[in-house]
């Protein structure tokens, strides 16, 4: 397995589709590159071109040192030699085989492969499913088996095409930790396709926004998604940290980027890492600390930026200040233009953020202890 670090990914191609042409020019060294965009933007076609399932009319695709496709030199590696691990939205397990046969399909009988299968089954918690028919798996189990199958084929890059897309929201949240665990455990360069901004933020180091076959933006997920407000929905701040204490149904989390936040307790023990989402519209902004208030989180912050939208709404980007008044995690809060003007909010100004612990939605409470 390639654990030498992220490979540089180059995708430059034109692929004619039914209603538009997919024109992509992307270079990235991200460990996990997110492809974000609405349905029909060309995300799956892009991934299928990487996997060799579709052939672009022109361009060049390179993963690390491996040239997968180059129209100028006539290189087009056949699918079986591309070395990609692909997990599509519908898993595509072979229905005539049981789980173990599906997972082992791309392996040899060597002890190294046996070890890899065992390790993967352990990480994804699927060993107990090995004898089961694929037709008798739940949606989440299918995706974990498909992920295992891709991992044990020793790919040079992992392609995850909306692997959570077919699942309902609670199940999505239960599978997300497995994806994070795979990212951290296997260290494979990964392309993660999703139209869920929260998932992109939770998993990716960099995101490419695709719309009608064209790259609209590329950059750090929080910056890119914050600026585009993640489509029609309110932006969700995704924050990571370590549980430091438990209260009455809540847990205090020391954020990686600085600051302390109370979140609902979801089985996480002190010392464990958690990842949680906080909607930008769940945050109240005040100039002075409120007193005698039920909300558990009352945090001092400094305004970094104020953005106004054409529809009369506004967004402020703030830095939570830690106990020593140092810069902490960056979050965004949505409010109206009127509120911004009434409170005279300006970059550099001090505010107080107020939100309930229950406004924080825990995405993962991974068993992995913080270092």
């Amino acid at each position, binding site marked *: 397995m390639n654990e030498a670090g992220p490979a540089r990914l180059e995708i430059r191609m034109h692929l004619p589709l039914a209603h538009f042409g997919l024109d992509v020019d992307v270079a990235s060294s991200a460990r996990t590159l997110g492809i974000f965009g609405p349905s029909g933007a060309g995300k799956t076609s892009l991934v299928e071109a990487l*996997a*060799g*399932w579709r052939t672009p009319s022109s361009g060049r695709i390179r993963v690390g040192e491996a040239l997968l496709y180059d129209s100028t030199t006539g290189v087009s590696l*056949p*699918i*079986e030699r*591309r070395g*990609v*691990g*692909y997990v*599509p939205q*519908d*898993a*595509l*397990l*072979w*229905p*005539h085989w049981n789980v173990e046969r599906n997972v082992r*399909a*791309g392996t040899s009988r060597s002890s190294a492969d046996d070890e890899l299968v065992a390790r993967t089954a352990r990480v994804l918690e699927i060993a107990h499913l090995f004898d089961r*028919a*694929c*037709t008798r*798996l739940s949606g989440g189990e*299918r995706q974990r088996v498909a992920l295992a*199958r*891709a991992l044990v*084929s020793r790919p040079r890059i992992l392609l995850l095409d909306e692997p959570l897309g077919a699942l309902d929201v609670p199940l999505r949240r239960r599978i997300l930790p497995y994806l994070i665990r795979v990212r951290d455990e296997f260290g494979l360069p990964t392309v993660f396709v999703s139209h869920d901004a929260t998932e992109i933020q939770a998993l990716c180091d960099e995101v490419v926004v695709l719309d009608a076959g064209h790259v609209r933006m590329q950059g750090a997920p929080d910056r890119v998604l914050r600026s585009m407000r993640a489509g029609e929905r309110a932006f969700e701040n995704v924050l990571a940290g370590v549980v430091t204490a438990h209260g009455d149904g809540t847990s205090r989390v020391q954020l990686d980027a600085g600051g302390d936040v109370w979140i609902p307790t979801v089985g996480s023990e002190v010392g464990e890492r958690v990842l949680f989402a906080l909607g930008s519209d769940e945050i109240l902004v005040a100039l002075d600390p409120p007193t005698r208030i039920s909300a558990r989180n009352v945090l001092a912050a400094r305004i970094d930026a104020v953005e106004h939208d054409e529809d009369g709404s506004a967004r402020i980007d703030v830095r939570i200040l830690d106990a020593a008044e140092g810069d902490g995690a960056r979050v965004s809060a949505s409010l109206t233009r009127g509120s911004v003007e009434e409170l005279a909010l300006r970059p550099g100004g001090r505010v107080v953020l107020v939100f309930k612990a229950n406004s924080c939605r825990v995405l993962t409470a991974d068993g992995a202890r913080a270092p």
Partner: protein
Amino acid sequence: MNASLSSDAGTAAVLWTTLRVAVTAAVIVAPIGTAIGWLLARRSFLGKSAVETFVALPLVLPPTAIGYLLLTLLARDGWLGERTLGFDLDLLFTWKGAVLASVVVSLPLVARTARAAFEDVDPRLESMARTIGMSRPRTFIAVTLPLARRGLLAAATLGFGRALGEFGATVIVAGNIPGRTQTLSLAIFSEIQLGDTSAALRLVAITILVAFVLMWWTERLLRRDPRARTAT
């Protein structure tokens, strides 16, 4: 002939010839029809629609026309005759000639059913097999064939059934020689010609029984099994 067919031995000889011809024809036509079905289902090539039409032709041509065409080809001066090849294929008026006629007549049925069986397999399941490193041949053997197996078995069964009832082409290429080339359908025709209705009815009853079992089996195979071909 009438006397012999009234006896068990005569009926057994007809059944033996029928089974020998139909089984041999099915064994030959199944791989050919499967290969053509796969080509038509999975490959794009120049002249594909011409091949489709040519393969389907025996479905609409009168079997006697096909028989006459084969007779012309296999005749001494024909393209596949002794003078052209330099040796005699020894097919005319033999049970092997009946096999050839059955193969040609049943090929469209087998190829079309096989094509449908392959088209029913999600091609993305094959792409996924190659993505994890399987070669094309291995993908075909490990994924495509098992997933299409019910449809392919049904295709072979239909080929067998068609060969079982073949008459028009067979009577021209192989004749109607008792004990050598006389199959069930030819024997029924002979009995009717001779006015032996009880012998004809007995043979018809046997034919109906065999046909019923075959069609029941084929329907079972073709009944869609959601687990068999679609991705999970």
